[in-house]
């Protein structure tokens, strides 16, 4: 096994960055897939799988992917929420895999809200 040089340390850290982001629970963006019973029935698992695949393909290392329960809007599932750092969250509804990929590329990576699929900007008051 080749011995490391100082630059190799950076290389290893870079390769590990996706994991570091996940571990620290703080990324540039957070994507939440709503996985209540309704969401799962409507195909939320496929949305999750599509997201994981596109993250892997793009080599994205600063986005956190999480799940949450039912968002209370069962008829519009599958749903996901995209939250860029320092921006209000955006909810997307009636998703399929293609829409999901487009939202990921345009909004999560490109910073542009895909208003065609968006339900609303912002979320309900918490209390």
């Amino acid at each position, binding site marked *: *096994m*080749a*011995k*490391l*040089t*100082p630059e*190799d*340390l950076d*290389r*290893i*850290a870079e*390769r*590990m*960055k*996706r*994991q*570091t*982001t*996940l*571990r*620290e*629970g*703080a*990324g540039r963006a*957070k994507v*939440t*897939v*709503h*996985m*209540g*019973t309704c969401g*799962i029935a409507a195909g939320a698992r496929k949305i*999750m*799988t599509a*997201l*994981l695949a596109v*993250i*892997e393909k793009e080599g994205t290392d600063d986005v*956190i*992917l*999480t*799940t*949450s*329960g039912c968002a209370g809007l069962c008829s519009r599932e599958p749903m996901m929420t995209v939250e860029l750092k320092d921006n209000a969250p955006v909810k997307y509804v009636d998703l399929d895999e293609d829409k999901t990929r487009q939202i990921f590329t345009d909004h999560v990576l490109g910073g542009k809200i895909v208003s065609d699929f968006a339900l609303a900007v912002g979320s309900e008051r918490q209390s």
Partner: protein
Amino acid sequence: MAETTASSDASKTYRAELLICAGTGCVSNRSFKIRDALEAEIRQRGLDDEVRVVTTGCQGFCAQGPIMIFQPDGIFYQMLTEEDVPLLVEEHLIKGRPVEKLMYVPPEGDEVVPKLSDIDFFRKQRLVVLRNRGLIDPEKIDEYIARDGYRALAKVLTGMTSEEVIEVVKASGLRGRGGAGFPTGIKWGLTRQAEGNGKCIICNADEGDPGAFMDRSIIESDPHAVLEGMAIGAYAIGAKNGYVYIREEYPLAMQRLHIAIDQAREYGLLGEDILGSGFSFDLAVHRGAGAFVCGEETSLIASLEGRTPEPRIRPPFPAQSGLWGQPTNINNVETWANVPVIISRGAEWYASLGTDTSKGTKVFSVVGKVNNTGLVEVPMGITMREIVFDIGGGIPDGKQFKAVQTGGPSGGCIPESLLDLPIDYERLMEVGSIMGSGGLIVMDEDTCMVDIARYFLDFLRSESCGKCTTCREGIAAMHDILADICAGQGEPEHIDLLGELAEAVSDASLCALGGTAPNPVLSTLRHFRDEYEAHIRDKKCPAGVCRALITYRIDPDKCKGCLLCTKACPEQIIRGEAKKPQTIDTEACIKCGVCRESCKFDAVLVE
């Protein structure tokens, strides 16, 4: 660069990680079983491509173990069992609904606190030494490197002279965490300047204080931090060899240390020509010989050389003549683990934490009569009150705080009136205690301070190596007096006699074992003199601990005659009719306390 056993599969995308604590405490609470059950369930539910289980070192909140952190959500799960696993996977992993009933509820509240970052125990800590705790798998060097690991070593080897490194450590104000608090940079400088044929460094991981587990947890959760600190120290001092002298009773720490050393060697971070710099350093692990005194530096060196671990006269100090006569720099585990951060973030940053004389943070193991037992890291200068009440969550069962014992068996007890004292080396000395290596034992109203002093002296008596007469005989004599006082045979002159013995023992013993052994007696005499007087003059033990001085009695007003105590009494000496107050035959009573424990009406009194 080839993939090795040392690297983890970082190329794969996971959406969540379950960081399960695999420190000694949680492991003994079956955390490995929970990990296995989680992995099986995740596989069975077809989530193994999305979610991964990671084992980390000690996360500190040992009271709530086994614990697990769910990332990226930051949810803190506690007191897990294998039976909880299916629910957890179904609810949180599949449906995205964190499971409330597995979350933490603070002792005084009734609402769950889902996030680790909101729990008081964690919120008030300042992690410097434990910066990677719970965040990395200690058996994977890449995870350490991902969090800036070995960058400080690279910085030192590529751009700093040995003298510059020593200057930084001096300027940081770092002092030895093994007990005496000697300035680390000065020690390094002395060893560097010493004449000698080869130099060596030692990491003292003997951790002999009963109940203390700071060093064990550091090694278990982040072994590379210690190795990196040692490599930096070796470069600064000019040493080619190092030793880690580790307590035999720490199998998990030892195993992780060996794995870490192997991985570091594989990456060329130990061995010849480290990081292509031309600097070479390697180290060996040595298992401790098992006596408390082995942690004392000159005994430790004797033990490493294969001799009987007995302290010797200093000077010469190890820095002048240590292992095999070589100039030897010995530092504690926590001291070494501070070094990489100091180099990375700078002396000024480090010195901004803490008090005038004591910089940085200190890791404490908090045990005893306190709600949140565990491992905490706090800035120097924090008050004892903050540690015991804010982080520690106060005293269980609504009892009153009485004292906190710091500094290990030869430390002292601090009373309630001094709880607001900012903690640093000097202030603890002023009140008759010591920092020691960081053990904190919290005591409540049911603790007898004379008995506690006797207990520690008993430990020290059996751990004295016997070389110095004052230590060997003096500690035993002090112990016997304390035992007499507890047995109701105390005489008024005993108090002065204890004072005289204390002086002789601490003045005329070679090492700090004898030097500090009187602390438990002197500090309790100073802060709890009334308890000594009650024992000696009134033949009473106010805390109700010393059996010779107490009697058990049943309060006729409270007793309902339920007969629970009557049935529980091993001597069958509690008598009376059912539904009528009972009485204890005090002559025949062996004072075991079973009646008191069995009573549901607090009717059994100790006087």
